[in-house]
């Protein structure tokens, strides 16, 4: 998938990945690739400004840990981040349902 289409969803996808537990940046990149079956192939470096932005917004916490003999910054969802992750997923599912209906020629019930 092309980068412009992915970029707007990076924050939500990072929150979704971290919903399963703390991870460092490289681990998140690998998990995004795995979950998408290789479909999402964005530049891995875009993850870090997104992580810093989410942390700045209070949705993530982070700390240094030694993982595999190397010092890495490990991120986790804050309480606000957990709520935001649920909210983003709910919003996305509603959006996907609506788009599916439009592409399928169906009309969803209002509300």
């Amino acid at each position, binding site marked *: 998938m092309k980068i412009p289409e992915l970029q707007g969803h990076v924050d939500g996808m990072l929150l979704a990945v971290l919903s399963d537990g703390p991870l460092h940046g490289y681990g998140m990149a690998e998990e995004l690739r795995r979950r998408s079956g290789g479909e999402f192939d964005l530049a891995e470096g*875009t993850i*870090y*400004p997104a992580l810093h932005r989410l942390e700045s917004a209070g949705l993530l916490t982070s700390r240094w840990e030694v993982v595999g003999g190397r010092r890495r910054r490990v991120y986790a969802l804050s309480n606000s981040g957990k709520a935001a992750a649920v909210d983003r997923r709910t919003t996305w599912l509603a959006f996907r349902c609506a788009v599916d209906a439009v592409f399928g020629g169906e009309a969803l019930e209002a509300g």
Partner: protein
Amino acid sequence: MPARDPIDAYVSELRSELRVPRWRRRRIVLEVRAHLLDAAEAERAAGVDAGVAAERALARFGFASEHAAQFNRVPRTRSVLLRRTLVPWLAAGVLTSMATATVWAFRPATPATHREALHAAIQHSPRRSVHAAGHAATPGTSPTRRAGAP
């Protein structure tokens, strides 16, 4: 001259383009370097030569200038903002209080002291002595003699 390690060169380029506080720059550089080393190791584990592994890791990571620009746009954390606004105001309040206390401690004499000093000056002034002398020269007008007294 040996060729510079491509990951070191990339990290140096990223560092030079970051316009963030020093502590943030250090953190970003450490995170990015760890990521690139992990990615290169994964390539080597797949049987790729070290030089090629590093180049592939860098290609997947993206351009340093673009990432630096994104980092430079990340807003500061609330705690940093709070420190940078609250601390100056607190410092100004403390300094103002200290200055006020110092000025108050070395303030000029109080009004009551002034009144006492002024009264003493009047008592000993030459004008009062002349006034007293004038009253004594005029018969029956001594300030110590009451009207009607013998």
